[in-house]
């Protein structure tokens, strides 16, 4: 028995000398990123998730690149662009030294081909609406037009791309930072299938041809995706890293342990319980940034008594948002008083939602609810997660003590939760939305009558027409005014009750230099390097 103990001890001591991956990374310049769930695929026109977007940022480059500080996008494949005075015609001048990883030139035809691919109904891309601002793009995607020549995209010559919009969209350049708009290599796509085939082997290492700063080196399912520096990339000198390893980690606890044992440079998130203690334990590593997303409760306005606007008012008045973010969420979130998160450099909604339990109680009294005639018990649906559960329980108590309203909590797994919302089988449900591009449209458009993500049954003609007006407005101030008016209607009617504005929280190793933050939490990997002070 003693022998066994000795052998075990010797064995364990021998293991103690393993070199930490973050230490060896200083030499190799390979960044180690915790990247959420395993990517569905790496086809930019098929995937929909955040983990995929982080990897595609390294592999493919669009016409423009997201600015690391969140300012206006930087030139990518397009060296410069001109916008016609009515804001409808964009002419992109492509750089002549942009190359695919096999050495081919990236030209305007690549973009025409790629955008046609996104919009082809037979491909079934889930993000075609990213291009719907282009003239005839939506009818083409819905099969109403079959000739792609009618869509407002054309290559004037090899290095000039002309895009005609259906309506002035001042955010169009921002849209072009989204991975859906990035080009794919025609010959590669057609070597493994046709323009509209899905799930072919073109996205595998060895087959993948990209035009980004990195090339796909290795893809081990549920283990790691590794990219290495490309030597055909036009701005090669800006790429300091030799490679990036993206680890799919769907378990926050493990990610946290990996970071602390030196297996990761950057995590995807932080376990909620740790935020408090990490503020003192890891002040340098812990990063909390504002995020372009809103946490809110969706209300099914077809379900009595929630069909009564005053009831929704009362529910909102009974919410102490400040207390929720300070004492429950604890991640530096801001109480939300509008659907669109306020952006200091852009759209800043002026709506206000007060916390006033007395007024809320008065409203319910006036509606005839009292001790004898209590407010009916309503159900609050959320998908299983500790964070959502905490918020839900705190709100349950707030409504109970402030309004005397009893709610029942129901958690289900993700898919049941989604399907119950879709068929309207809920009263109140937890929801969250992260903007796809830095513009209020990505939020407010969702609540237009009949949109797939409205799901509240709410419909308001004035709201719809304000959004239409905003779409046709040529200058940004005018647009934002329309949006603000729409926001006022939304916050007055309350088919949704905003709770807080998200923050992004993660751990960042001090070796990582040049890592910038922005509202959408996406950034190119150029100019990031690993140096130990």
């Amino acid at each position, binding site marked *: 028995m003693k022998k066994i103990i000795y052998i075990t001890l010797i064995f364990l001591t021998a293991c103690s000398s393993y070199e930490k991956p973050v230490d060896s990374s200083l030499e190799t310049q390979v960044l180690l990123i915790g990247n959420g769930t395993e990517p569905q695929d790496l086809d930019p026109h098929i995937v929909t998730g955040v983990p995929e977007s982080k990897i595609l940022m390294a592999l493919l480059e669009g016409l423009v690149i997201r600015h690391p500080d969140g300012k206006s996008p930087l030139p990518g494949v397009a060296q410069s662009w001109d916008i016609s005075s009515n804001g409808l015609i964009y002419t992109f001048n492509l750089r002549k030294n942009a190359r695919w990883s096999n050495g081919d030139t990236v030209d305007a035809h690549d973009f025409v081909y790629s955008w046609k691919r996104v919009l082809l109904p037979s491909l079934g891309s889930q993000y075609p609406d990213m291009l719907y601002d282009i003239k005839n793009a939506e009818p083409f995607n819905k099969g109403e037009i079959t000739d792609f020549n009618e869509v407002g995209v054309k290559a004037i010559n090899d290095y000039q791309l002309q895009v005609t919009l259906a309506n002035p969209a001042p955010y169009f350049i921002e849209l072009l930072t989204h991975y859906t708009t990035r080009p794919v290599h025609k010959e590669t796509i057609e070597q493994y299938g046709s323009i509209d085939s899905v*799930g072919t*082997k073109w996205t595998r290492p060895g087959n993948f041809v990209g035009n980004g700063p990195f090339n796909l080196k290795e893809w081990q399912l549920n283990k790691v995706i590794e990219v290495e520096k490309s030597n055909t990339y036009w701005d090669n000198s800006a790429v300091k890293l030799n490679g990036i390893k993206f680890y799919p980690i769907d378990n926050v*606890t*493990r990610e946290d342990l990996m970071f602390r044992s030196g297996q990761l440079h950057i995590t995807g998130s932080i376990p909620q319980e740790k935020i408090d203690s990490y503020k003192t334990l890891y002040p340098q590593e812990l990063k909390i940034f504002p995020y372009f997303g809103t946490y809110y409760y969706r209300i099914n306005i077809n379900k009595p008594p929630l069909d009564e606007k005053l009831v929704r008012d009362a529910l909102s008045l009974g919410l102490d948002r400040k207390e929720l973010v300070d004492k429950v969420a604890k991640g530096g979130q801001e109480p939300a008083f509008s659907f669109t998160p306020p952006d200091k450099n852009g759209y800043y909604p002026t709506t206000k939602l007060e916390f006033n339990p007395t007024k809320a109680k008065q409203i319910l009294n006036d509606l005839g609810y009292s001790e004898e005639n209590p407010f009916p018990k309503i159900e609050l649906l959320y998908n299983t997660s500790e964070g959502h559960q905490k918020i839900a329980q705190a709100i349950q108590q707030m409504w109970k003590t402030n309004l005397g309203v009893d709610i029942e909590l129901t958690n289900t797994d993700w898919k049941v939760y989604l*399907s*119950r919302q879709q068929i309207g089988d809920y009263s109140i449900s937890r929801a969250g939305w992260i903007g796809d591009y830095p513009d209020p449209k990505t939020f407010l458009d969702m609540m237009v009558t009949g949109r797939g993500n409205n799901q509240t049954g709410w419909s308001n003609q004035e709201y719809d027409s304000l959004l239409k007006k905003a779409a046709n407005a040529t200058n940004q101030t005018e647009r934002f005014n329309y949006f603000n008016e729409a926001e006022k209607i939304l916050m007055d009617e309350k088919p949704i009750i905003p709770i807080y504005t998200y923050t992004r929280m993660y751990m960042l190793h001090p070796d990582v230099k040049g890592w910038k933050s922005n509202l959408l939490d996406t950034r190119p990997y150029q100019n990031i390097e690993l140096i130990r002070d």
Partner: protein
Amino acid sequence: MISLIFRRFLAALPVLLVVITVTFFMVHSAPGGPFDADKAVSKEVLEQLNERYNLNEPVWKQYFIYLSNVVQGDFGPSFRYPSRSVTELILTGLPITFELALYSIIFAIFIGVSAGLISGLKPNTSYDYVPMTLAMAGICIPSIILGPSLSLVFGITLQWVPVSGWGDIPGDKILPVITLGTAYAAYCARLTRGGMLEILNQDFIRTARAKGLSETRVVLVHALRGGLTPVVAFLGPAMAGLLAGSFVVETVFGIPGLGRFYVEAAFNRDYTMILGTTIFFSSLIIFFNLIADLVASALNPKLR
């Protein structure tokens, strides 16, 4: 023996058919579809997707299409990972999970049977209480607690072993094997002890002792054979359970095994993947139960 294997093989086919049928209709009637996402897909896209995966056909028709594909060895593409086939996913995860399960079961048998043997031979002494108390602790502590605790102590505080990975950094296999094996070791210990107590009371052991055979011979040759019957009966389901139930350990330690695919497929409503892994695991269970029965009859000649 061979005829038994052959008969069991034949019996396995209807079992699999039942499993496929039940599972097929279950997954298709479960709420939520494979393409539900928080960004709702448009009607046109959904139709396109359903058509691609034959989901627009009536369910019974889909069932027969699926069956005929399976008979030809085609388990279809995964819905969650459109560029991977179910077979490819299973083949990626299987060797890893199998390795993990194998190490864990060896760990469990080695630790469990020795501990059970010691306590079974000296019941109600400290040789009995200490291993059994530990065994009970092993059963009580769920791997979702044991895994992170071990990681904290040996990975973070002592910095001896890495906390995540499988075959990337030396030593990264130690903690997962211990975490997964512990509960099964504890089961083995308790079952061995129970079996030994049972068998040591029986007449043939008393006869053997009366004949003056050495205690070691009595225990290792006569008693252990019968005393292990419950352990062996348990090992069949345990091995299958290890393979299917390695999910938690795989998640806690970031092991790219099959257990994660199995559970995630259910949550993602990845129909083909659920069915593929179910067929695979059912076959495994049948296989390991057969092995367990064979070993049981080898240990107990009367059963033949």
